[in-house]
């Protein structure tokens, strides 16, 4: 069964039709590349899944149940996590502090509760081990490489039982070696049974790591096929409009 199912989703802002009648489904443990030119509607689509916007029409279902989101926090409660393009990290805090930002672990009784440093270091370390990333929970994020920073941002999504991780351009501004690191992180997420939606402009990344590619153009879904049955040339044609649509 699909972990997330969108049916005839549309979103308009006044007269502007940002997303138009899009249906798609995401299976557990699947990596889906979401591609499209600027203004194609992919970030609007993602923001609806993340709870930033409410769809004008259509329904979203998660594990077969209707999903209605008013706030990003609610998306998180349903197991939808986002890795923002700028990673949303605080340089002056440690890796563990960043992983737990906004949901710090505490110990104590009633109102007398203090931060549980030991537990946060331990758990963050375990997550980095699962991600096979050489990231020390006690280090300041300020001193970290681009790949380690990605690991911190991704570790955040693994605190709770995430079902879907939406990644917004994770490889946009980092070095080649670090791109490989990030793609490995995505594979580790998938191996945990987590679905990943990878929003990217970079064709090689999508074809390297994704199982499926969805292409959007001018608010519509114009392709949804397995990586094996597509090619970078075809996707390029779909993005630019040289190829109208494929089923």
């Amino acid at each position, binding site marked *: 069964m699909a972990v997330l199912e969108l049916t005839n989703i549309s979103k308009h802002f006044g007269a502007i039709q940002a997303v138009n009648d899009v249906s798609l489904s995401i299976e557990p443990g699947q990596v889906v590349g979401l591609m499209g030119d600027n203004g194609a509607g992919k970030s609007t689509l993602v923001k609806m899944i993340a709870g930033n916007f409410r769809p004008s029409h259509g329904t979203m279902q998660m594990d077969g149940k209707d999903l209605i989101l008013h706030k990003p926090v609610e998306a998180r409660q349903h197991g939808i996590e986002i890795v923002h393009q700028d990673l949303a*990290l605080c340089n002056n805090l440690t890796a563990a502090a960043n992983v737990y930002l906004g949901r710090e672990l505490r110990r104590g009784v009633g109102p007398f*509760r203090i931060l549980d440093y030991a537990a946060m270091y331990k758990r963050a370390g375990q997550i980095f081990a699962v991600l096979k990333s050489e990231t020390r929970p006690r280090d300041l994020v300020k001193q970290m490489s681009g790949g380690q920073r990605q690991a911190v941002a991704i570790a*955040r999504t693994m605190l709770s039982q995430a079902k879907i991780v939406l990644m917004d351009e994770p490889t946009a501004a980092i070095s080649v070696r670090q791109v490989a690191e990030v793609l490995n992180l995505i594979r580790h997420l998938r191996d945990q049974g987590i679905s990943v939606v990878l929003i990217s402009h970079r064709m090689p990344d999508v074809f390297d790591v994704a199982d499926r590619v969805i292409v959007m153009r001018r608010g519509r879904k114009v392709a949804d096929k397995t990586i094996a049955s597509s090619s970078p040339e075809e996707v390029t044609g779909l993005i630019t409009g040289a190829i109208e649509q494929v089923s």
Partner: protein
Amino acid sequence: MAATLDQTIAQKQHTLLSRVFATQTFWVVIAVILACLFLSFATDSFATPKNLYNITRNITFVAIVALGMTFVIITGGIDLSVGSVLCLCSMILAVTMHAGYSIEIGIAAAIGTALIVGAFNGVLIAYLGFPPFVVTLGMLSIARSLAMVASNNTVVFQFGPDHDKLLALGGGAWLFGIANPVLYMILLALITGFVLRWTKFGRHIFAIGGNEHAATLTGVPVRQIKVAVYMISALAAGIAGIIQTGWLGAVTTNLGNGMELQVIAATVIGGANLAGGVGTAFGAIVGAALIEVIRNSLGLLGINAFWQGVFIGGAILLAVLFDRIRNFRRSD
């Protein structure tokens, strides 16, 4: 392979000692100690119980306000209104007690005033997006003016039926001959240190100073916390005002004039970063101590008091210079 990865993750890069040496606060402590040692040998009048009593007590007023300012500065903000708020709260306390009310009511009125002023600053900054510099600059003017209105610009030195209680509160020495203000300072510093290091609130303050956008995205209640830090800053100024009133035994509308600059200097010397994200309670105290020791020593060494500003300004620049040098080394 897996074992080495686990080892890497578990590794602590810095020992406690190396972390202590790396802080600006540590070097300022060394500077304070060296200055005290030097003055003990160079003058007969420094290491006397009376002078030490005076120094420790003089530190407290700037230090207490600096503790509150530390919260604001860690979030990346600034509060220029503290000197005027101190004056306003002192005046509210004085006028209320002068009118015949008890000390409890007077203190409650002063604290209430501080919290309202702080909330006003905070709401303008957090919810309406005013720059902190501008809002608190405005409040600097407003609060002092209100103090003048409240007292009709007179000196208040009679505090009604609880006159003696108030003077004992600020001027007494209830424990081991340590001046009361010093005791309050130590207590408040401990609370501040605890809140910054061990509470979720403290952690979120650092997060806002480090990357406000990230704090918002991860669900930190940024606006509420910002209002809270300006309330804490005003509260600290109010508390210092109450204690100072008891110590001086009189309030003029000049009280706390220019104090905001000393307070900011103390926090910066103590290691807080005006760009946000860095600061400690201990640093605020140590910074205030260094300023006071400089001032005291100039007097004892017979140096013209007009030179005071040069030495304090020099200390600010020197403290930040050390920080810059460390950063240069790190980026190499």
